[in-house]
């Protein structure tokens, strides 16, 4: 029965370099914070699996964002409103986009969606850099600490992990 899960478990955790970890964390957060009923969500979801990154981190990050980003709605709404309504110089641009085919399906004219997009635009690249540096410097140390912790030892001694090790040897 456990053997059935190994082909699904392996792609989730196999990419463990600092770049894959940081990309997974940041990109997952972007996907999770994107509104579900927009045209960009399925595209981003597809890209989550198309680009090589640590899928376990990416999906966990997406889940975390989906749960906790809505608590930031008032801030996102204020930022979105400032960009859409109060910035008069951009109105012509928004007006042109509003009446262009397909663009309205991005729901860019919704204040929370726009606020989320502004934060994604501003913080994605810096977050990538910071997390990459963090994982490259501290990744090994954190991995050792997790594996030497009680949960890590329990996992390593579990039949699931032993079976997974056999699976890895087989596919090599």
């Amino acid at each position, binding site marked *: 029965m456990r053997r059935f899960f190994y082909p699904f478990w392996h*792609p989730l955790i196999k990419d463990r*370099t600092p*770049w894959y970890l940081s990309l997974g964390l940041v990109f997952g957060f972007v996907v999770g914070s994107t509104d579900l009923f927009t045209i960009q969500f399925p595209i981003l979801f*597809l890209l989550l*699996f*198309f*680009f*090589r990154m640590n899928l376990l981190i990416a999906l966990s990050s997406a889940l975390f964002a989906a749960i906790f980003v*809505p608590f930031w*709605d008032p801030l*996102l*709404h204020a930022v*979105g*409103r400032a960009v*859409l*309504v109060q910035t008069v110089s951009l*109105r012509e641009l*928004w*007006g*042109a986009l*509003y*009446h*262009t*085919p*397909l663009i*309205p*399906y991005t729901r860019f*004219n*919704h*204040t*929370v*969606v726009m*606020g989320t997009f502004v934060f994604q635009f501003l913080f994605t690249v810096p977050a990538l850099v910071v997390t990459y540096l963090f994982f490259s410097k501290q990744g090994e140390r954190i991995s050792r600490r997790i594996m030497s912790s009680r949960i890590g030892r329990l996992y390593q001694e579990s039949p699931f992990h032993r079976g997974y090790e056999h699976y890895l040897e087989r596919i090599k």
Partner: protein
Amino acid sequence: MKYFRLKAIPFFIAIYGLLSFYLFLFGKSHFKSYLEEYLSQLRGGEVSIGKLSLYPFSRTLELESIEVARRSLPMKNLLTIDKASIHYSLGAVFAKKLHFNDIRLEGISHNSNRSRAARPILIDKEERTVGTAPALFDVVASSLYNHLKDQIRDNPLRYINKLASGQDISSKTAALSKTDVVGELQKQKEALIEKAEKWKSRTKDWEKTVLNLVSQWQALTKDFRNIASIPRNRVQTLTLELRKAQENLGQDLGELQKEVSDSSAFESILESEIIRVQKSLGIPRESGDDFSNLLMGPKIIEFMERAAFWIDWTRNNLLTGTPDVTTQKRDRGETVHFGKPGALPNFTVLKLNVNSSARNKFQGDIQATIENFTSDPSILGKPFRGEGTAHFSDLEIKDMMGKFEIDHTGSEQKESFHLKLSSFPIENWKVLDEKGARLEIFKALIGGEFDLQFVENKISGKGTFDFSHIDSKATSTAKPIEEAVQSALGATPRITVTCELQGEVNRPQLTITSNFGKNLALSLRETFKHQIGAVEENVKHHLIQEYEPQRAEIEKLLSELHTTTLLGLERHKKTLEQILRLADKFIK
């Protein structure tokens, strides 16, 4: 380092393929369920769709067997539409807009039977604030609603109940009679004293003016013994002054005469005061206006509430005008809409045709056309209009004709509605449901005409309705009231109601009159003639007692004004006229 996971591609092709296949098989049923639920919430009653077909290549959506259930009768349909063909614009869909070029409805039925009982719909009462200004109709509905509610709250029947039960209301009569009349008369007297002073000083001024003009004329004619030698220009100058003085004096005289006649209208003042007290006591008047409000008001309020709901819905979902930016509150945050001249409106129905011919007893002959229904009228540039006729002979709905036009394309907003029908059945109408009396119309046929116009902030409307073939019942805890209502019903086999609406949108004046209201008032006055007579005598007695001393003083003031001021001014006017005649004779 590898950047792409190519092995995922076939996996996702499979996933999206399965999803597309699922949508292909079941997408229509999901869409149908969504549409049914949305329309049911909108209506507040079940709306079901028999079959939904989508033809993407011909850009047509077809709905068949649409049933709109009646809220009060779960086994009956308010409306059934056999087939609805909707031709939409695909380009508009890409821009997230709904643009229907043509909608056709066929086979309309009313009051047909359902195969199963309609399920009750729990309305989602989520409160939405609107980013647009209130619509005209909504403001009028609110004003009328409050106006009528106040009138109905002040129910005349509650006092008749007291008379019927033999309660003595003479102390209330005395209190009401004292309250306002003395104060009013006091004010009138003080105003008259002030006016008298003012007129005295003006009369003195006129005396000086006239004396001056007379002496100028005398000086002219005295210096030049031979009239022919008097210079024409000097006479013309004097003549102009005389004419101007005559005109101004004439105006002053008219003003004073009016003030005197207004103040001396004692009988009409007393009459209006008696009516005021009678109204406060709920004594029915012969015109029956208050009963017309009581009887017809609740139905009008119900109509206004329904109209206000639909107006509110359009304000929440369809924008008006072409503002630069408007916002609509949503679950999370706000949606911002950007207006752009020349762009396609968010929602448009260019033409809707209804074509139905009677094939069974529930179906009717209906021909109707609606054009240019849009969320942005100023972008489309055409007024929203419609007209239609309907005839359901088996259901006694005959010759119904409606016409409307809503023009928000220009700077001046105009709306007009017209409805005419020769027959429409109504059932189970609780006309009156008070503690003192109940009147229910089980069945009747209504016919009439109604016209309503809005131009910017002004509203005007007129309606006349006839109720015939009336099957009704009246009951009351007081037997005399029951008999009086039955007698009024007997005297009115055909009830005619006239409504008239005029004025500004914020303060519309609604007048409802009906022959039944009048007959009811007369019938109640006849039934309680002794009690009402006693009350009316009581009212008159109290008013006259309070009024007489004030009246004597006011009459004295008016007499002084008449003899010293009014007559004086008339004398001066005659003097001026004599001199003008001489001057005119000379000029000729």
